[in-house]
């Protein structure tokens, strides 16, 4: 990618200092765009690993950036649900008579064997409260010009010390995210494809997540259908509801 970007950057020749926008602004605009009040999604996961590919389908309800209920509909996961609230994750299984709360070290486990961990699903605060943002210029991702924003943790409540986000200049949605360990090793790569507009918001309909420490392994996220800003009964996100 670099060999393409460099000449392009040179062509654009936009030095960072000339940019009228600040890193914080970019992030704020990003969050304004991507955080949705309520949403109903019909989607599926494709999990690729050394033994093959597995498909899982689900329906999810979400509210804001921190609350989400996922109900799995594929046969293999039948009846399993995951509830995510501010900083907790609960798992429901039909044959279990209690909810399983994932916390501590258990959060680092991967969800359904995918490249995503339970920890990756957590995180409620705005990026700016946990990270310091700096703008590193403009780079092209998938033919679209993006702000390259470097995020460095300033509080210790996030798992990834450093993240780099490529945020689309026009749409203010991320096209690519890289997450790093404290010593700077690339741990996760997320790329967004197929961005469509739904009710005025830009939604990624296809996302690819890679755990770079695992080879030959990736997870794809597809949205089949999505409805946003609909009325959702707040009880959906309660623990009681989860046990139904």
């Amino acid at each position, binding site marked *: 990618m670099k060999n393409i970007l460099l000449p392009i950057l040179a062509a654009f020749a936009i030095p960072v200092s000339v940019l009228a926008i600040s890193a914080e602004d970019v992030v704020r605009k990003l969050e304004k765009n991507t955080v949705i009040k309520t949403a109903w999604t019909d989607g599926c996961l494709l999990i690729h690993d050394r033994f093959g590919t597995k498909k899982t389908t689900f329906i999810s309800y979400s509210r804001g950036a921190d609350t989400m209920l996922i109900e799995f509909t594929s046969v293999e996961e039948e009846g399993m649900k995951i509830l995510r609230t501010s900083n907790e994750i609960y798992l429901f299984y039909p044959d279990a008579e209690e909810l399983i709360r994932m916390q501590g070290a258990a959060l680092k486990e991967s969800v359904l064997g995918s490249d995503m961990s339970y920890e990756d699903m957590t995180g409620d605060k705005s990026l700016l409260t946990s990270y310091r943002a700096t703008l590193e210029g403009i780079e092209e991702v998938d033919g679209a010009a993006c702000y390259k924003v470097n995020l460095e943790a300033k509080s210790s409540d996030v798992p990834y010390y450093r993240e780099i986000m490529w945020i689309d200049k026009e749409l203010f949605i991320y096209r690519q995210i890289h997450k790093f*360990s*404290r*010593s700077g090793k690339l741990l996760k790569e997320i790329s967004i494809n197929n961005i469509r507009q739904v009710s005025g918001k830009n939604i990624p309909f296809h996302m690819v997540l890679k755990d770079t*420490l695992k080879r030959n392994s990736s997870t794809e996220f597809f949205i089949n259908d999505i409805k946003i800003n609909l009325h959702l009964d707040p009880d959906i996100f309660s623990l009681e509801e989860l046990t139904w």
Partner: protein
Amino acid sequence: MGLAIFIFIDSWLLGAQRESERNLIWYETSSARVLNQQYWEEKDQLPLKYVIENPEAVTDRLQELNIPAAPRIVFGGELIVRENPFEQDGSLPVKIFAIDPEKDNRVFRFNETIKEGRSLKSGEENILMGAWMAEDLGAEIGYPLTILTTTRDGYIQTIDVKIVGIINCPNPVINRSSIFLPLDIADRYLEMHGAITEINLKLPERADADLMASSIEKELGTDFPGLEILSWKTLAGDFVALAGMKQSATRMILFLVFIIVAVGVSNTMLMAIYERFRELGMMRALGMKDSQIRLAFLFESGGIGLIGSVLGILLGTILCFWIINRGIDLTFMSRNMDIGYRIAGISRGAWHPEALVYAFFFGIILSVAVTFFPTRRALKMTITDCLRYQ
């Protein structure tokens, strides 16, 4: 002769137990450990939360008390290996010991067990790996791998390292699931800011660890509150339980040996005595008093017993020397065993002076005792019967 064997065996068996103790102490737990008071409860999680903030001050203080101390950070993580050069892609949960390459040798003995490669040096991003783990992974010197863990603050962290040495130490637990890293590297990557999770102490070999641990704790208590010192007995609970069992098995074996030896000794003495009945009769005929005779014989047998014991001890000691220093190579046996009893490789004896003393006295006493009864009998017989004795 019998005594020699008794001593030898006793020494060997005790040696096995001591060896195991020693393995434990030398390689795994150290004689005692200084920990943050809250650490022990959650020790299974290997928490970086409960640390010792000012290790230098504590080690200096311990130095004043003449106790060698080695600081360490112990943490958990995952080892991530790649197909090239390892056999397959994989990840393995490991326990990582970050040691100070200079200070660690004051307390532990790892340097002696490096099988391949070399020891760690501060500042290098290298690790030592246990031999059995290396074998399982197909690892060799120079292979790179990644350690996945979390910093003290909770950030996901990776450390890229190379294997610089392989350790084959007699402690199977170490061989199987541990790796070693220089302390300063761990401090940097885990963002410990100088804090460590434990300080390991070396106490004199035969000292009562529990007693010393609590007295040291009191000493440190005033200046360094919030710390506690645990002796190796607490640190390795399962070992203590096992030692109990080994005791009974050992005792049984010793008992059997004892019987055999006792029989041998008394046999010899008895025969010697009966041989001399006629002599005894003669002495009586010549007019010696009974008590004098008895004393004479007892002394004599005591003397023989003494000489025998001394010889036995000498012989036993020589044999002990051999087994303590050279040992018997049992490596071929212990590879696959997962006995909680930490023995691998060479089985050594250990000095057991008490046993020597017991055996010594026992030899003498037995000789004397065995002489006593026949002597009495002889003295009861008529002189002529004695003389006629065949």
